[in-house]
């Protein structure tokens, strides 16, 4: 247990000392600046429409679409960070000779995995939470619009990136560094595609596409969490505005309900079990 804590602290120190952190901060600031400019410009245009006869409040459409975009970018940047912090944790580090001196210490391989996971997950969750909060404030200031739920989408995004850190750590047990990085981004892409198929299925409507979307989102629950987060932005809004939002790419048509939380915990436990099993069998 103390071993796991030491490994997590070591992972934090590593992420702070390596240039990764600096690069991520610069990219995040660039994104936030762009988002602030874009959001301000968009709301200025929208406010010129004046009030709408069909009860479609254009600032709801603009606000939730823009914040949806920010959430997509946040998830993407968070995924980049999660992958960076975990992609070589086992096989990559073993091939470079970094892992062996740690593994022979009396701490146990499961503790080492736990430490790496907690270290990476905490950094990514805090990062994603911060980025989401700043995007929310920018949207509020630029358009005087707030989503129906403010806290839940942030927590769901944080959980999504924690799931991705777990997927990447599991991949690192079996795949060398580069292969794992590619694999995790392909999994990430697959999740997004499944989500978009589901949304197209809702719009057409097509039951088959909806099923593909739901199955994909459940098999890759970071996607379900992301959709749930998008859904929460306009979950209490009715009428045409929410319908229009849901047609867009950041609509989050699907609502998975409270079972999702239980499934996410079960999923993380499955990832942990597979990683511990694979690491236990591996010759270093």
């Amino acid at each position, binding site marked *: 247990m103390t071993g796991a804590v*030491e490994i997590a602290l070591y992972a934090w120190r590593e992420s702070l000392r390596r240039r990764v952190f600096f690069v991520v901060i610069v990219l995040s600031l660039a994104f936030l600046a762009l988002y602030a400019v874009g959001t301000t410009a968009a709301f200025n245009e929208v406010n010129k429409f004046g009030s709408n006869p069909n009860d479609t409040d254009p600032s709801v459409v603009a606000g939730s679409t823009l914040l949806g975009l920010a959430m997509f970018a946040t998830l993407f940047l968070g995924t980049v960070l999660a992958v960076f912090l975990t992609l070589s944790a086992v096989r990559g580090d073993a091939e470079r*000779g*970094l892992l062996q*001196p*740690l593994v022979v*210490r*009396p701490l146990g391989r499961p503790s080492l995995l736990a430490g790496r996971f907690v270290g990476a997950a905490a950094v990514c969750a805090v990062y994603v939470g911060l980025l989401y909060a700043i995007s929310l404030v920018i949207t509020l200031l630029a358009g005087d619009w707030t989503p129906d739920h403010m806290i839940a989408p942030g927590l769901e995004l944080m959980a999504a990136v924690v799931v991705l850190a777990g997927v990447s750590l599991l991949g690192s047990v079996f795949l060398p560094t580069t292969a794992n990085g590619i694999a995790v981004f392909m999994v990430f892409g697959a999740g997004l595609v499944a989500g978009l198929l589901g949304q197209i299925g809702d719009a057409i409507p097509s039951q088959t596409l909806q099923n593909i979307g739901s199955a994909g989102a459940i098999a890759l629950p970071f996607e379900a969490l992301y959709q749930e987060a998008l859904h929460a932005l306009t979950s209490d809004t009715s009428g045409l505005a929410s319908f229009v939002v849901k047609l867009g790419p950041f609509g989050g048509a699907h609502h998975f309900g409270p079972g999702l939380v239980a499934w996410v915990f079960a999923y993380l436990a499955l990832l942990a079990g597979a990683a511990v099993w694979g690491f236990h069998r591996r*010759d270093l």
Partner: protein
Amino acid sequence: MPPALAAHAVEKRYRSTAALRGVDLAVDEGQLVGLLGPNGAGKSTLVKIACGLVRPSGGRAEICGHPAGSLAARARIGYLAELFRFPDWARADEVLELHQKLAGSRGGAAERSELLELVGLADARDRRVEAMSKGMQQRLGLAQALVGNPRLLLLDEPTSALDPVGRRTVRQLLEELRRRGVSVLLNSHLLSEVELVCDRVAIIASGALVAEGRPADLVKPRGVEVETASGKRVIEGAGRDDAPRIVSDLVAAGERVFGVRVLSSTLEDVYLEAVGGETS
């Protein structure tokens, strides 16, 4: 007291390669054992099994009576891998501090300073790993292996990146460890190094033990060479104790003796004979 390391019929197969084919080896308390063998003989594999990095396909290994790889076994070893790295961003002192925490050592700053001093890195305690030469990193690796006073030190080619001065430092370090009663298993290519410091030598080739014993017992007498008026010849089977008698017999027989030399095989001869000139 159980031996520091006991390997019983240890086997390891990697898919098609048999890296170890039933090796028995013991390192007794306080002993310094050299493990010699050509590249690919299985030396590193044996050491990795001893520290729990690799799981044997057959047989078993124990550290001070505990199964290799168990927490109790790992709490008693220090290991320096053949190919290892410390994180580029870490300072020498931080590397040792992390290992102190993981090993549960309470030595604190005093232990770290002593270890850096012991490996000749006292001036480099705040230097980052990325700014160290390969030789300095290897010394830091040695200091790391000594963290927490291990009962058994497993060193896999610890001098491969060192210059002659660095090698001598390591030799002195090994002698110091012997004084402290630490058991050591030393993998090395350098026969002379092993001959100088080891109590016992084991030679493995193609995954099997081919010779084992004290260096002095392994090097067999090869006869006595005498130079007389009729030239040089070798009296086979004779040893040092036979030399005076041989000379007096020759003199008594009226021969003039210009030189006498006792021949013995070097560890290198023993090694070459044992591995059959094999290399890879």
